[in-house]
């Protein structure tokens, strides 16, 4: 992907992201208090709401005046004070660049998330899972200023992690943007990124042809990363077999995500680029509309 196109995608993602805010998970608590008010109920001084008393509530928060007026135990709630951070991990292997649409979708997603994070007054950082883990240039800045994103590496993110573990922010939200097309136990992979994380979000990006291959007949497949070639005669049976195997692989990732409390969302690059539909992210309360 040339730099201009990459820039366009970044700008596009940034533009889309301005309409959204990043929603934080419940367990996102700063030890010394945060700079940002969370939507969750917390212990800051800023009033949030009233509600009926429930056993276990702090008695100090009972509004005795309201009790006097209504003869009901009413508790005052306050906004939670947080210090949120999002680490976006972008899979920079060659498989992500099999089509410009695929790599573009990944870039746009990263840009949307970082812009939404900024809208939520959260800090962010973009990590590139290349030969090793490394930050992109201006990784905490505006996405349009990001530099050095190249999808030309031959190893999956776990290999990069093993070579040099990234310095993720403690208790940060970690987002992995990848096609997940490598054979490794998903739970092991997620455990690398789950260490001292508030939450993990896995965004699987695949093209339509990867999800459901349309070509038939004699094909010579070349692996984008290893360069290995296999020759096949593709018919409906073979295609069905491929889809079944992909589905099983994806199920493994879903199950592993569920086990460690991560959220996994599968996205189609063509669908996202055409409709700019972020329903899946909204539905999973990763993003919220401003």
């Amino acid at each position: 992907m040339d730099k201009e196109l990459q820039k366009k995608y970044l700008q596009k993602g940034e533009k889309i992201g301005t309409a959204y805010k990043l929603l934080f998970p419940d367990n996102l608590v700063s030890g010394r208090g945060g700079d940002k008010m969370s939507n969750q109920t917390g212990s800051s001084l800023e009033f949030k709401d009233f509600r009926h008393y429930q056993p276990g509530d702090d008695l100090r928060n009972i509004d005795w005046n309201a009790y006097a007026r209504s003869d009901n135990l009413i508790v005052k709630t306050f906004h939670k004070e947080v210090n949120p951070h999002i680490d976006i991990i972008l899979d920079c292997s060659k498989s992500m660049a099999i089509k410009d649409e695929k790599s573009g979708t990944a870039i746009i997603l990263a840009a949307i998330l970082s812009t939404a994070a900024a809208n939520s007054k959260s800090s962010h950082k973009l990590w590139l899972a290349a030969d090793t883990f490394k930050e992109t240039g201006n990784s905490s800045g505006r996405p349009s200023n990001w530099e050095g994103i190249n999808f030309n590496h031959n190893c999956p993110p776990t290999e990069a992690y093993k070579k040099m573990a990234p310095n993720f922010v403690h208790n940060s939200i970690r987002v992995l943007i990848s096609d997940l097309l490598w054979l490794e136990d998903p739970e092991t992979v997620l455990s690398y990124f789950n260490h001292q994380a508030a939450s993990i979000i896995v965004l699987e990006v695949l093209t339509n042809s990867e999800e459901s291959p349309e070509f038939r007949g004699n094909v010579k497949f070349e692996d984008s990363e290893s360069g290995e070639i296999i020759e096949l005669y593709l018919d409906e049976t073979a295609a069905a077999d491929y889809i079944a195997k992909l589905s099983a692989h994806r199920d493994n990732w879903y199950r592993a995500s569920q086990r460690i409390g991560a959220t996994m969302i599968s996205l189609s690059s063509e669908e996202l680029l055409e409709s700019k539909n972020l329903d899946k992210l909204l539905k999973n309360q990763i993003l919220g509309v401003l």
Partner: protein
Amino acid sequence: MFQLVNPWALLGLISLPILTALYFLRNRHRKIKVSSIIFWQTLQKPKQGGRSIKNPRFPLLFLLELLILILLTAAGTRILYLSRSQRKPIMIILDNSYSMSAKDLKGKSAKEKGIIYIKKIIKDYNFDPYFMLAGDSPNFIDNSDNFPNFKELNKLWQCKSKYSCLKRALTEAKKIANENSYFLVITDKAPKMNLKKNKVIWKALGYKNSNIGFINAVRKTIDNKDQCLWELKNFSDIPGQTTVSIECVEKILKEKKYNFKPNETIKFRYSFPEIEIPIYCKISDDSLNYDNESRLLTHKIKKVPIKISISNKKLNKIIYSVLKSTNIIFHSEKPKIVFTDSPEIKANEDFWVVQIIQSKNPRAFSGPFIKNSVHPINEGIDLRGTIWGAGKEVLKGIPLVTVGNTTLAADKEINNSHHITIKYNPEYSNIQKSFNFPILFWNIFNWRNNENIGILNRNLRLGSNIYLKLPKRTTEIKLTTPDGTIKKISINTNSLIYPANTQGIYSFTKKEQSWSAAVNVLSENESDLSNSLSGEWGKWINENNISEQSFKSASGKFIMIIILLLLIHQFLISKSSLHIPKQHANEKK
């Protein structure tokens, strides 16, 4: 040989490059770059074992399809192939007489023209030919292994017989042939019989020409002097001329030019002291060279020692007189034949006995007389009009002459010797006044001479048999034929009868002993080319369809092969398509 009924069907071959192009386009692998091949690799994994073995790819289906298309095209063209089983058999009877070698004005013989004609007939009608040589006797040529080998046929068809038994050969050929057979006679003369309709073609390829040839040749040694006599005839209605050359060991003894009137026969003699070498007489080359040479060997008639022991004076006189007239006897005390009227003298190893029985009650028999015609004693005997006086006595041995139930002469063999008994009463007979009487006795001497070792008649006509009496316990002799071929002949009975089918000198050798015989053509019928002609008689049934009947369509066979190939094709396709679902099913389990 092939024929295409629908050659335009060859256009179907256009489908071959089309199929080839389709095959290569279809089997061309599109190169597609994918993110990962991990889910495609499992499709190729073997069900069992370790590494998959990649065998060389052989496009069997493609080749099958190509073959099917080629066969379909071939079936469409309706290829007709020549099948020997479908070919109509033809029996070709070849005139093997030497007149077939007579040349026409262009220098071509009837035999040469015959071979050309036969080749054409076989090619035009696709016949399956069988050959029969018609010489002195019919001779079938077995050509089943090397059909049709004209080189071999040319060797066998020598045209050296003095006679061609065409009628007999045709009869024999019809016996051998089946009902679908055709018949062709190659000769140089017109047919002398009615040809069966629609079955036989009589092809004469001769040429009426003038010819001078030997019709007789004799050599006799009398009183230490060899005398030769030759007869030459001009077989033509116009005068002829030839130069006669008498030669001996490549030395010309005499040369003379003779002028012949139309159809004239000229005799000429040549005498010289007795010499044991062949004398050749040659004439100038003409249209038929085979009868232009004669060779003669010395022929000395051996006299037979006899003894007459007949008590009856009258009979003695008659017998003595007739024996003397044969001129081949002499009286000896060591006779080979004893003539007697006594029953006491019996034949033994040293001599034969001719016993004359005079009956006391004779009768005059006037016939009909029945003679044993195969016995040498009866050769040339004609008893018509003869009165034979004899009694009713019973004779022992093989009857030689009988009348009614009365045997007049008999032969009894005793220890390889012969006791001949003749009932004869001269006063009741007139046989002694006929030519039969000296012939009868001459035959007895000749027969006795035949029992001598060697060849009795050394100068023979073509087609005669050479009679050779051999020493006892002879098991094998060597024969050198006129063409120089040396043969070994096994002997069982101390004698040999060998047919002289080629003119020239035959030499028989046993260790240091040797005997030879000269054979000469001397056949007026064959040397006479005035009857030779060209023409065709007879007709074959369905003559125009003979060729087509010999072809058989191969389309049916092609269709059968196509069906078989289609089944194999279908089997291979179903086998290959079953492979992936099975693997898939196993994985799901």
